[in-house]
């Protein structure tokens, strides 16, 4: 029987077929059961899958850590480490892909997206351990406890603070890389000009304010950091304050209007309006402030050693021209009546494993990060640097690997502050709190005019943060 079809009917059928083909192509791939790791998917606190020794058959994993062929900087050692891993693990094939060349915030977005779907990278690297906690809270990274005895026996040799920041809810979620510590860098030439001993660094806020006043001249400011962003957070930590505290049930208490926050805001405000030791450009971003420091417009800068390594290549500063020091303590911390133990931000580069992959790939991924960041490899990296005449300041994550083993071309005075800050270090008192931007607005209002009401603005910010962020977060916790 002949089928007759009008043109309109044909076009309808063709259109429908096209849409169906497109939908079929987009449908999720039916994957066999073993390709999932359901025990880590929803409940990050559940125990990890039991780790198994190295796989017998060849396993392929995907890692975003490709080092460019023409690389010349400190990170180029990764290529050497990758070769060593390949030689030592013929049963694991690592596909190295280019690292996403985007800002830290965008990289976070990149990983969250990649790890929320199947087929993401086997292993994830990030610059900051806070991110590890966020990813662990979302169930996006696998607990590594079962792998440590197999592939990372040096776990006990890590500094306690490094162990602490590698955990979330009692489970280990990252293998730490380089340790990052926050401190201040002070120009030694400006200190000398101001009549200070070149090795001087301020121990508390009165000394800090006095130093900033003496360092402020017609040509440069004593203090020019981004106040609204994490510069404020760092000073708050050193006064033993916090914006948020997390309770055992993971609910969060806000402390925007605590005495430590008020003291810190007052100190910042005094720097601007009373002592005039900082530029009026107090709202600037990090890059602008770094530029000012590089162009001799500021005597101090809020620092991490890894930035210094990068700065060696881009600015005229060399480590012997700068002091690196722990932050000065605020009044609540000095009087030991602060809300929390005063701590300085200590973080690490972090290596994590994607839980949404077949078990053998997860095992291989864990093996890869434990090898690449092992104590032995950290020592080899330091030797490689020295052989290649690279300069860098690091604190080792291991107690038995001194800082000057992993640093090269740096004067002795850089060492003690690294260790002091490591002693001060503590974990963030509320790693799950992601509403820090509500404080920004309050600080903006406070620093806008000399007659602003600090307490009222902070209270307003807290109310807003509760209403717009925290209430929803708590509802989410309750499921």
């Amino acid at each position, binding site marked *: 029987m002949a089928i007759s079809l009008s043109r309109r009917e044909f076009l309808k059928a063709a259109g429908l077929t096209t849409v169906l083909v497109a939908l079929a192509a987009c449908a999720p791939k039916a994957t066999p059961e073993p390709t999932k790791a359901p025990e880590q998917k929803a409940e990050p606190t559940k125990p990890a899958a039991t780790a198994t020794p190295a796989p017998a058959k060849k396993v392929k994993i995907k890692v975003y850590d490709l080092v460019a062929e023409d690389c010349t900087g400190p990170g180029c050692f990764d290529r050497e480490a990758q070769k060593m891993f390949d030689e030592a693990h013929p049963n694991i094939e690592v596909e190295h892909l280019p690292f996403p060349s985007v800002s830290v915030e965008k990289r976070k977005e990149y990983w969250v997206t990649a790890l929320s779907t199947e087929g993401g990278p086997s292993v994830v690297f990030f610059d900051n351990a806070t991110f590890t906690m966020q990813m662990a809270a979302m169930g996006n990274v696998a607990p590594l406890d079962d792998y440590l005895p197999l592939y990372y026996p040096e776990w006990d040799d890590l500094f306690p603070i490094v162990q602490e920041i590698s955990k979330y809810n009692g489970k280990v979620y990252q293998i730490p890389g380089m340790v990052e510590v926050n401190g201040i860098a002070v120009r030694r030439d400006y200190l000398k000009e101001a009549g200070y001993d070149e090795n001087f660094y301020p121990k508390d806020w009165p000394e800090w304010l006095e130093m900033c006043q003496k360092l402020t001249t017609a040509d440069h400011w004593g203090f020019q950091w981004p106040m609204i962003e994490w510069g404020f957070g760092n000073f708050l930590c050193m006064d033993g304050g916090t914006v948020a505290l997390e309770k055992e049930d993971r609910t969060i208490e806000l402390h925007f209007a605590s005495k430590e926050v008020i003291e810190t805001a007052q100190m910042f405000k005094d720097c601007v309006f009373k002592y005039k030791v900082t530029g009026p450009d107090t709202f600037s971003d990090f890059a602008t402030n770094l530029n*000012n420091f590089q162009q001799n417009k500021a005597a101090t800068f809020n620092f991490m050693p890894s930035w210094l390594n990068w700065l060696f290549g881009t600015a005229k500063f060399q480590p012997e021209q700068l002091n690196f020091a722990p932050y000065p303590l605020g009044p609540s911390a000095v009087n030991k009546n602060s809300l929390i133990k005063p701590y300085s931000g200590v973080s690490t580069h972090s290596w994590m494993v994607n839980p949404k992959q077949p078990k053998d790939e997860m095992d291989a991924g864990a093996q890869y990060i434990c090898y690449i960041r092992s104590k032995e490899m950290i020592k080899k990296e330091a030797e490689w640097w020295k052989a290649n005449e690279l300069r860098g300041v690091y604190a080792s994550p291991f107690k038995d690997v001194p800082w000057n083993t992993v640093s090269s071309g740096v004067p002795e005075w850089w060492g003690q502050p690294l260790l002091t800050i490591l002693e001060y270090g503590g974990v963030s008192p509320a790693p799950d709190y992601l509403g820090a931007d509500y404080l920004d607005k309050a600080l903006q209002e406070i620093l806008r005019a000399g007659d602003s009401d600090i307490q009222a603005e902070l209270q307003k910010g807290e109310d807003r943060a509760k209403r717009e962020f925290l209430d929803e977060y708590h509802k*989410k916790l309750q499921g």
Partner: protein
Amino acid sequence: MGMPSAVPSEALVRSQKLINWQRLGRTLPGIVFLAPAVIAFIIFRYYPLLKGLYMSLFRWDTQNPPGAFVGLNNFSLTLSSDVFREVFVNTLLLYAFGMLLGFWVPVVQSLLLNELRRGYYLFRFLYVLPVMVPGIAFLMVWKYIWHPDFGLANAVMLILHLPKQLWLSDPKLVKLTLRLPSLLGGGMSVLIYTAAIQNVSLEVIEAAIMDGASAWQRTRFIILPNILPIVGILFVLSLTGSLLAFDDVWIMTGGGPGYSSTTLVMGVYQRAFVQNQYGLGSAWAVVILICTLILTLARLWTMREERM
């Protein structure tokens, strides 16, 4: 010759029903060539839009999607949010400054270009040339122009014996500063307006000249009314572009100081990717979509009224 029958013959019906292979042969390649673009459009434009709408109804959980159904709660949170209101006002102000400072400039430049007797092609080329400069380079140059210590803007202020300004760091100034570069005009708009002006009937213009109309009168009563539809289209495009502003502000200020230059789309980004509130971020996005639709439709409606 018999009268034609009112009822079509069976043969005629069959011939109409059957595929006209000749016509199909002409249309099929078109369908095949269009299909990838249409499918891609559906997948990458309409699917995310509908997915965003769906997500906005949930307290979205990235690990166990979709999470708890919350109905319109995310919309209620959005509309009652102080931050949303502030950011919405910021976006409108950025749009208003963009309009006041920049929208009319390419129109004037095109009109002047049209009056040129010599060097028309050279100046048209020069106006369009900056389009070829990558946007990021342009923004970085401006960022340094606004630098409070080393920037050109404050150097000019000093020459004029005026106080230095914190162009990008003063919450009161930042929005205006962000839109000041649009005063330079140029770009693709000049090319579009120039093309529109050249489409105005020469006979009408010549007749106006014969009647003694001045250059201003010709512009005011002949050229401008004729290019108004194009102006309207570019107005709508600039309106939607302003409501979706992100990259230029992100590069210049990151949304700061505080929230003072944060735009609606940056607010979406903040909610979704910084605070992990994907449902709420989607609700913000849906509200932006509705606002854009309302404003665009309102403008298209007024354009229709003007035409009638």
